[in-house]
């Protein structure tokens, strides 16, 4: 075999991302379901109360963030389970690249398919709640920094609950408490702007947490996969 | 004495706290003892089955 036939680390990373993207495109309904769920949860809040514009504006960041959290929990079940069921995960673990790298690829793909659409849709929902423009920007910035973290931390939970009965509920039970800081800083950023304060500290903390979790979570999730595959 | 149990009108809260603690401890100790009893019983019956063979 020629040396140029071997794949570099970045080639393998791209392969995993492209593969998950391709598979999702063949099953677009799954991506859409998550998105519709997100919109639906957010829309339920005004219906469950007196739609006072002032109150709605106040609760908007929290509602959007909680809905984003729930929507990404919903899609976590698919992260490894299909690959586990058909044996692809075994082959992934036997790849000559570090497993953490491939897991990182899957996290990136998961975020592009379930996190990014939420980020893009969030301003529209913000407008429904009467959030002013500067608040919308901060909401998007916060979600952009926060949703990859949900995918990364979620990957750990998904790997730990691989192939278990009732894995879907269990994964939320494990992952949601760990995501609380993300929720606090993300929703806090928008709150700060709406209260005419700077959102910078919140966003800086979110950014720092993102760097740390993207560095650590793939490795931890890889260990979890090894445990679960035993 | 009744003054002690009244706790300056806050008896419900103070005794509610300590009472639940007592209850939780009793339940936990009972549960631990029960678990030990069950496992010993199980091991004994396993042993008897082993002796018959």
């Amino acid at each position, binding site marked *: 075999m020629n040396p140029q036939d071997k*794949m570099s680390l970045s080639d*393998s990373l791209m392969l995993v991302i492209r593969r998950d993207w391709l*598979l999702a495109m063949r099953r677009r309904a799954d991506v859409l379901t998550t998105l519709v769920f997100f919109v639906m949860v957010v829309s339920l809040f005004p219906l469950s109360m007196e739609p006072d514009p002032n109150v709605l504006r106040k609760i908007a960041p929290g509602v959007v963030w909680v809905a984003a959290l729930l929507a990404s929990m919903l899609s976590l079940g698919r992260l490894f389970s299909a690959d586990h069921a058909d044996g692809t995960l075994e082959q992934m673990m036997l790849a000559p690249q570090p497993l953490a790298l491939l897991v990182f690829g899957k996290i990136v793909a998961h975020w592009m398919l379930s996190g990014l659409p939420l980020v893009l849709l969030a301003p529209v929902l913000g407008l429904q709640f009467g959030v002013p423009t500067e608040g919308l920007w901060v909401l998007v910035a916060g979600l952009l920094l926060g949703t990859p973290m949900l995918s990364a931390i979620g990957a750990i939970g998904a790997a730990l609950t691989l192939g278990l009965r009732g894995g879907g509920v269990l994964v939320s039970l494990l992952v949601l408490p760990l995501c609380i800081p993300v929720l606090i800083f993300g929703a806090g950023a928008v709150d700060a702007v709406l209260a005419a304060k700077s959102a910078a500290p919140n966003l800086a903390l979110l950014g720092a947490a993102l760097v740390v979790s993207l560095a650590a979570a793939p490795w931890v999730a890889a260990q979890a996969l090894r445990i679960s595959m035993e | 004495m009744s003054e002690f149990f009244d706790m300056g009108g806050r008896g419900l809260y103070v005794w509610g706290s300590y009472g639940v603690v007592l209850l939780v401890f009793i339940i936990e100790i009972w549960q631990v003892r029960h678990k030990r009893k069950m496992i010993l019983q199980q091991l004994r019956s396993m042993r008897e089955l082993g002796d018959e063979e």
Partner: protein
Amino acid sequence: MLEVNDLACSRGDHRLFSGLSFSLSAGELMRIEGVNGSGKTSLLRALCGFLMPDAGTIRWRGEDIRAQREEYHAELVYLGHLNAIKDDLDARENLRINAGMAGIRLDGKEAVAALRRMGLRGRETLPMKVLSQGQRRRVALARLLVGDAPLWILDEPLTALDVGAVGLMQELIGEHLARGGMAIYTTHQPLEVAGVTTRRLALS
């Protein structure tokens, strides 16, 4: 090349086997035998590094496999009970992606050639959904034709295969051994390679 020393494995708290030692060198073929539940699959999974042994060592080229995971994986092909095949993709896409996952870049032509060798001419771009179980197994086995990994670990490779495909497998393993490769497998069907004595390892 592959040395197993005093290996012990268990499932949960139940011991499957212990004190297992053997070695396998270039050109050798080994068949693992034993009744259901004797730990054949567990042994193969331990050899891949999935299962942590309770005791003992597994060495590849003199070094523990856990100390050199990536290097070892580059020289290993494992085919388990599961085919690692995606229903939403076609045969060619499946093979190219699986090869890529194993670090081998495969162009469309090479993939088609490998699939044709496995007797899948005309099925290369059909969605996997419409293929039969035996044909899916053939797509999975096509992984053996790409790359040059010396160690093959095959768990029941003949499941769902017809007589023709079994003959093809015997041929493929023979070629692999002639190249200096080695293979270790389990099977409930007869699988003999002409001119090679199969070593047998019985698990009790």
